[in-house]
């Protein structure tokens, strides 16, 4: 997974993962964290609500975020978004390659 994420570094893009839990429950996602990768704890669901992904999927017997992917340009504008929908929303998410291709199409 880390190798896949490293491709974003080559694209001058910072990957930021947001987990809808307290820090204590970020668990193994923490292993991803490093200089170039940030893992954030959204324990109050605030950011998940603002970005429209909160409380939309049942996973591990909990009501959690649906998958959400957002590309933000250097100009701070939202360039592209994908929010998982439907009965198979767990699988309704872009591959890392698709995200990388979208970033390449993002000029600013």
């Amino acid at each position: 997974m880390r190798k896949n994420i490293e491709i974003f570094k080559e694209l001058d893009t910072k990957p930021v993962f947001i987990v809808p839990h307290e820090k204590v429950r970020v668990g193994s996602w923490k292993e991803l964290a490093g200089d170039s990768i940030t893992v954030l704890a959204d324990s109050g669901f605030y950011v998940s609500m603002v970005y429209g992904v909160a409380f939309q999927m049942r996973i591990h017997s909990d009501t959690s975020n649906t998958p959400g992917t957002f590309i933000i340009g250097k100009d701070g504008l939202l360039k592209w978004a994908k929010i998982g929908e439907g009965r198979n929303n767990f699988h309704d998410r872009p591959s890392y390659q698709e995200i990388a291709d979208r970033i390449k199409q993002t000029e600013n």
Partner: protein
Amino acid sequence: MNETKVKNILEEFSKSWPADRIDYRRPEDESWKIYGLSLKELLLEDKKAVPELEAGLKAPNKQVRALCSRALGFLNADASVGGLADAVYNDSWETVRLLAADSLGMIFTAEAKEVLNNALEREKHKDVKLHIRIALRRENGLEEEAVKSLVFIDEKKIESIIIGAPSPDFTLRSCNGSKFTLSDYLGKKKIILIFLYGDG
């Protein structure tokens, strides 16, 4: 007065979250917003909400029981360990037991830990067991600063993303404890935000 308000919040929530609800995102279904806003309203009531939330742990609608279990932890309701113990030991729905375990971890008293240890011995469901173990390995109680961010959410900000418009700014703590503010990267780097879901 507050009793009535909390009852009303739970009744309204129950309309959008019936027991037979299917928890996946469907186009034009906005009940997920009701979930977040109900939780916010309950947290705004603070400890005054606790008696009604404890009563809600016995509600016929399992979704209400789950919401009450979650809210009691967010409120750090240390007087509710007994009610949460009953939920984590006996509720028929694993989600309620799991959220009750989370809340007992947040409350973090010796009594709450004892309940969690007992629950670990009797629990069979792997997801609930995982949450009990996570609750038991906590070194601190509720991360109040972060959890209570929901209280300050403006309804107009919910799902306020528009392609081509400024991305909503935010500040969160990283898993290593440092602060991250999205706007700090303005003019410096593109950002890819990936929202995750289950436990890592």
